[in-house]
């Protein structure tokens, strides 16, 4: 067992902004523990001499010219907004500070 604790899951849920119920935290702790246990074997073969691959097909220098394209209308921008004031998206008060 990789020893994942409920506290850890609660912290991860907070990082991921999911308000998990205590029951969810409990069941996820068990499941995560099993999953992590079964995937942890990757560390065994990932020796320092093996480079990491982040992209399956190696490409580089993919750029876009600095030319303005088509844009959304204000109506399109706001069309799916749960709440807005006619021009801006509206959210509840913010507790934390910007990063």
């Amino acid at each position, binding site marked *: 067992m990789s020893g994942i604790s409920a506290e850890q899951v609660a912290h991860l849920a907070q990082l991921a902004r999911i308000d998990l119920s205590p029951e969810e935290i409990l069941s996820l702790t068990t499941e995560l523990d099993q999953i992590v246990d079964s995937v942890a074997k990757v560390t065994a073969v990932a020796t320092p001499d093996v480079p990491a691959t982040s992209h399956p097909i190696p490409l580089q220098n*993919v750029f*876009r*010219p600095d030319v303005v394209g088509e844009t959304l209308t204000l109506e399109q921008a706001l069309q799916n907004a749960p709440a807005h004031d006619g021009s801006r998206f509206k959210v509840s008060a*913010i507790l934390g500070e910007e*990063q």
Partner: protein
Amino acid sequence: MARAQLMDFDKALELFEPVMGFEVHVELNTKTKMFSDAPNVFGAEPNTGLSPLCLGLPGTLPVVNEQAVRYSISLGLALGCSIAESSRFARKNYFYPDTPKNYQISQYDEPIAFEGSVEIELADGTLIDIPIERAHMEEDAGKLTHIGGSSGRIQGADYSLVDYNRAGVPLVEIVTKPIYGGEHRSPEIAKAYVAAIRDIVVSLGISDAKMERGNLRCDANVSLRPRVAEGAQPAPLGTRTETKNVNSLRSVERAVRFEIQRQAAILAKGGSITQETRHWHEDTGETSAGRPKSDADDYRYFPEPDLLPVVPSAELVEELRAALPEQPAVRRRRLKAEWGFTDLEFQDIQNSGLLTEVSETVAAGASPAAARKWWTGEIARLANAADADAASLVSPADVAALAGLVEAGTLTDRLARQVLEGVVAGEGTPQQVVDARGLAVVSDDGALIAAIDEALAAQPDVLEKIRDGKVQAAGAVIGAVMKAMKGQADAARVRELVLERANA
């Protein structure tokens, strides 16, 4: 902490050695955003001109703006940095309503530029090299407006509104290494460093660099360490605070000074410094506690899978290197010679952080002397009174226009100062202010002569004295005429005419 509880600055320096570090964010003035073809403009109506990516809509993907990469490399070179052979983007994951994808595309372990240095010049002409750790590319966030509550600040607001126009604007973040040895000049160094960065990006033409608009933003890190006896092991670095978004040159200087005094007071009492971000309050000139830095700052960086590495070719780097404008130090020497200023006169400009403004004013047609006079004189005075950066009050083009009006005799210095106040108050260009306020010098001799004749007629004794050769008596008449013309006359010309009329 109230000002009264701060430690005296000199005392603080006796006990502690300040160590500084800066993160300066520069908004690039590309036509489009960093990762989408939405326009990069300031001041548009909220949430207009957006691309789906600016809103992080499902299915959107980023594509790198080539111009932003070129600008970033140029800036890296101007900072004396090495340009990475291979550089890549990473995702910095954190939830915040101004961040449309809830991750910021930034660079992490492979920045585009690293290991450089910037030479800055202090008031007394001392040159100091500021070591640069890295410069990396990233995207800006949207803008929040907090509604309700007492202050429009985040604390106590009822709700917030989000405008994503700024989301995705290309940024370069320049990070210094720790800056040691600044000692009592640390605040001055802080200001000179940010001014130097501003000069560099302006000379490169890659940013509008208006601090008041947030084109250039500075986070200042300050820590103190106790002094030790000479020869002893230096004390370990103290806990640092990061004062965010100090958005004027003047404030950078003040914020560093404040933090040194604040931290010294706490440490001297045996207290400890909390590692945290702090907010700068322009109005009170103080910093206040913000978010504590902790393990919760887990940004879960990983290579951005939607973007490919940026591998600048040697040819591209050399092309951009060849196109770099002259080094700031070289530029300073050149300008000083071209403008024919004395050391003192030039330092005056340097110290005010107004080299760019004076230079642009000269470029806009003013004489160097006039440009210097206006910026370091009247404009600096107005800025001081308004607690603002001089550059935020008026544009170089307007100053040049003002100097031009004086040169042409349309305005006297005194009138020009009134016009300047109008420009600063937002009444338009100097010419528009002149027209609107009717401030031009009365250069119509006929009108002046009429007023002189009237004044002479009213003071026959004075006329006699002048005719007797007591020229200084003319002063009374001149005064009367100036008053009649509401000050809008050239006193020298009035004097000439008075003598002419009196002896006619």
